[in-house]
């Protein structure tokens, strides 16, 4: 481990230990340690990236820099020194001066953090005025200045709007302005771009980076996405389960990772998938589908035409709101289309779920994004997987047990899972059980709706590999809905790019992903962060030149 070179660190953390209390059902509550002694320094004006999977303790460490433990979390040991003072030993009064004064915080969901009943300006300037750093007038001038720096439209007047009157990406930038307004020494960014679409993320990322550089503030940048953190930070600390795995300069971590875990993170999504040729007869043919939700006068889908061949994967890519999940609802029959037909395995599917035959229902299964809500928390894994077997094939008793175990083996879970409840599984295991439930029906087509986007990169990688393996064994087709182009590259045979309810680009993977691109596909493709230092600048520069050329 190499120490950050600095004479007087702004933030000095030594032997930080953080604990929490767990409440296992049926047992006495007991304390556990979630961060086991972390050391690091942060020099003024530098950016340190904290990276790790969920549960690695990165947010908890970030909040410890404000002497705060969220929920039942408690800082149990160590020192956190800001500007030479140990803030863990300070009284409440000093901590109040620290929070929102010297150290500020940008959270993941701006929409949930802003008070919807107050205007943006009032909230952006609140901390600065409360801390007596600026008068109301000065703070407002400062805020407008920051709005301009962050590239928000109409910086003079945007402050008088309410949070719901600006877009998600704009609100996230407002939150950055909020954090920078009191002129802090340190800002804690907690996954500031994770909830945004890729094309929005790149703008917010560039704005944050520029604002950090212009104001000379130091920052802790917390994220699970190594490619993102590589763009903004000077140093990176890799965390796993509350311990430090590796610490180094961004250059070293990205280009020369020493630890095995870091290497795995850097090389994630290295799946190579060779595109299959289309066959003569498609399994699924979606023709001219137009759909709208009841009670609205707006078509969410406009004349969609796609085909999916047996044993292959069609990826539907697009941002949130592009209509890709609605397409899945139409295909499954949950939302009857207002126009168009769906042909499945040579027969026309009835538009409404209630009039479809049991055979149609069985051959078309679905896997959801949130495995947590896709499984009944009061049913065991055995019941969850066993029900389709019983329902479609009438399997009972021993035959059912054997088949459940076969399926569990197929999803690489093995013995001892039948009697567990979903709450007793990890995120990746839950998604595997959902896959097994879909497979139990012996379907011809599985619709995968953002199945990996709620998972950590390494876990998601495992799921994708499993899906590819299962496709080979069971010869099942996947309709893969995602916003993540890296996933698409890894598993698709053909791709449909959706934008505002229309398919703007459709064809075999090799064709869709090679130039010449249409404007939207180009924007989408170039916005996906690459694990390369300086990528952000390249893209921004490239776009600037293009717009200058036009």
């Amino acid at each position, binding site marked *: 481990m190499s120490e950050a070179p600095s004479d007087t660190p702004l933030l000095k953390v030594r032997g930080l230990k953080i604990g929490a209390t767990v409440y296992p*059902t049926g047992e006495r509550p007991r304390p556990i340690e979630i961060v086991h002694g972390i050391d690091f320094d942060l020099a003024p004006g530098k950016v340190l990236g904290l990276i790790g999977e969920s549960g690695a303790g990165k947010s908890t460490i970030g909040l410890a820099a404000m002497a705060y433990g969220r929920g039942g979390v408690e800082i149990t040991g160590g020192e956190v020194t800001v500007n030479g003072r140990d803030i863990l030993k300070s009284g409440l009064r000093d901590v109040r001066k620290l929070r929102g004064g010297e150290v500020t915080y940008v959270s993941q969901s701006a929409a949930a953090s802003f008070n919807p009943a107050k205007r943006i300006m009032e909230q952006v300037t609140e901390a600065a005025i409360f801390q007596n750093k600026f008068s109301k007038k000065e703070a407002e001038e400062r805020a407008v200045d920051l709005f301009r720096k962050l590239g928000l439209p109409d910086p003079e007047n945007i402050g008088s709007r309410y949070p719901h009157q600006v877009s998600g990406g704009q609100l996230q930038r407002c939150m950055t302005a909020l954090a920078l307004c009191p002129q802090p020494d340190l800002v804690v960014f907690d996954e500031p771009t994770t909830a945004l679409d890729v094309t929005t993320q790149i703008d917010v990322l560039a704005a944050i980076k520029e604002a950090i550089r212009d104001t000379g503030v130091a920052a802790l940048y917390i994220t699970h996405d190594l490619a993102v953190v590589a763009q903004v930070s000077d140093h990176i600390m890799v965390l796993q389960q509350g311990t430090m795995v590796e610490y180094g300069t961004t250059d070293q971590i990205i280009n020369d990772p020493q630890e095995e875990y870091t290497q795995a993170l850097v090389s994630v999504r290295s799946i190579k998938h060779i595109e299959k040729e289309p066959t003569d007869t498609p399994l699924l043919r979606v023709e001219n589908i137009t759909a709208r939700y009841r009670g609205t006068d707006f078509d969410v889908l406009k004349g969609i035409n796609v085909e999916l061949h047996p044993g292959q994967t069609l990826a539907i890519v697009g941002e949130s709101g592009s209509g890709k999940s609605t397409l899945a609802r139409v295909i*499954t029959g*949950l939302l009857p289309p207002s126009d168009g037909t769906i042909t499945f395995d040579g027969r026309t599917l009835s538009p409404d*779920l209630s009039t479809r035959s049991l055979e149609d229902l069985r051959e078309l299964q679905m896997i959801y994004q949130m495995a947590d809500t*896709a499984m*009944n*928390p009061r049913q065991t894994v055995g019941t969850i997987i066993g*029900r389709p077997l019983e329902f479609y094939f009438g399997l009972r008793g021993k035959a059912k047990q054997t088949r459940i175990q076969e399926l569990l083996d197929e999803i690489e879970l093995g013995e001892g899972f039948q009697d567990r409840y979903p*709450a007793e599984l990890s995120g990746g295991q839950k998604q595997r059980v959902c896959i097994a*439930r879909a497979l139990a029906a012996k379907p011809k087509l599985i619709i995968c709706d953002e199945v990996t986007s709620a998972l950590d990169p390494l876990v998601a990688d495992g799921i994708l590999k499993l899906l590819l393996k299962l496709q080979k064994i069971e010869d099942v087709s996947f309709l893969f809905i995602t916003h993540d182009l890296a996933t698409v590259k890894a598993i698709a045979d053909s791709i449909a790019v959706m934008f505002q309810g229309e398919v703007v680009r459709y064809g075999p993977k090799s064709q869709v992903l090679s130039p010449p691109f249409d404007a939207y596909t180009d924007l989408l493709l170039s916005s996906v962060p690459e694990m390369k230092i300086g990528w952000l600048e390249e893209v921004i520069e490239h776009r600037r030149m293009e717009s200058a050329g036009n």
Partner: protein
Amino acid sequence: MKNIPLAALIGLFFTGLFFLMALFAPLIAPYGMAEVVGDVWEPSSSEFLLGTDSIGRDLLTRLIYGGRTTIFIATMATLLSFTLGSILGFFAAVSGGWVDQAISRFVDLIMSIPSLIFALVVLSVMPTTTTILILLMGLLDSTRVYRLARAVAVDITVMDYVEAARLRGEKIGWIIFRETLPNALSPLVAEMGLRFIFAVLFISTLSFLGLGVQPPMADWGGIVKENKEGINYGIQAALYPAYAIAILCISINLVADWILHRTTSLKGGRG
């Protein structure tokens, strides 16, 4: 079952005691239910532990038999209201659309009439038998249970696992009893404790007004009515059933609280 908190233990003890007394009333009670054994309003003595009532019956005996009637009617009415209310509520939530609208608006209609007045009107034309009382109270209370059950179920039916069951082609019975009910049980059990208490109060009110359980059968509201004149002379007889009602209320709610606490886990694991 090892870590039962003290409050729940107390609640369990008294609830158990009341129900046992109700079950074995003829064995426990020192005298016959309608037997006149002494003078009017005798003070408590070794012969009559709580004294006698307005016509000389043993008050303890009356209380024990009264508890039997009151608890029986309240229990049956609560069971009826829960079975009917929650099944209708789940059915409305799972079906949605016009089915939901039709049932919900009908329930609103019933709820807009104050239930005591509704009951008084019905009882003034119907014969006052135990069956009629149970049916009436159960039906009236089921509207409240319906509201709760529907509200809880509406939140559950939008979960992905219910959608998955629909996509599988499951019938409405499976969706109601296997997907929705287990996840709605916690709030329903808590509500059941409360509803039982309301049922006790309701039947006592009716009896006090003379429209509930008819003499010579004993019930707690009836005992208050029979002995209310005694209060003027400093006779406690009318207060004992009130104490009984209060103790039953509190203990049942202690138990309900504990059950709610045990089954509500944020992780939704084994309760």
